[in-house]
């Protein structure tokens, strides 16, 4: 997968406003390689962080459910 294709996938994946997504996708062909790498790295880090936070929330909920079940 080329960095540009990967960036397109990430823009569509992260929870940006629809207008922001549209604007980013429209400006994608004009972006230079450095900008693609910079934005792609930021969005990748954001998505990974979001998944980590969600995973922690799920673990916390599971622990509470177990505690609630025991009580």
């Amino acid at each position: 997968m080329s960095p540009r294709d990967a960036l397109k996938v990430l823009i569509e994946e992260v929870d940006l406003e629809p207008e922001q997504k549209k604007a980013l996708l429209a400006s994608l062909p004009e972006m230079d390689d450095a900008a693609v790498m910079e934005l792609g790295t930021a969005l990748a880090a954001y998505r990974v962080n979001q998944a980590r936070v969600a995973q922690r929330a799920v673990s916390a909920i599971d622990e509470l459910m177990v505690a609630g079940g025991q009580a």
Partner: protein
Amino acid sequence: MEGNRERGMMESMDLSLRESIKAYDSFRAEYDALARRAEPYLNDPTVTEGSKAAVRTALNAALACGDMFPGVGLASTLSATTLKGLSKADKILKWFHAPFGKKTDGKSTGFQMLDLTPDVKLRTSLGFQLLELCSAGMLPMRTIEGLMQMNKDVPRVWRAYKRIREIAAAEAVIAPKVQNAIDVFSPDGGAV
């Protein structure tokens, strides 16, 4: 001398104003990020219903504690029944004002939100009120009414809890296509 002091004061004011604006911008960015993250949860009807049920359960539990004391119990039952009556009246007025043959939009108004036992019928509540008055506030009727509502609300809270878990679990899973895209930019630190 005087001019220098004034200039110095103006500069420090300008600096503190700039710092305040910067702090506000940073707070605003944090708030927006938090709001965006909370949006899938807050927009979910099951979670909204469960949150309301949780607040109601807490308030009903507090009122049940108050009901243990005869004088306070009578006041709490009376106020709860009055609020229920107002809520019912508001619902009827809304129904009258709705266009003929059309149902109301189903949104709760301020008065309807005040009713802490919406699943208990008004006539049941009035019956409890009568019993409480007959017993001079000795019978814990508000607690019984609260327990009847809790019986409906606790499953709602439980459903909301499970729904929150479902939403978080969906966010925690990264689709293979997205994982491939992440690997392009951070091949070493992308794994969750």
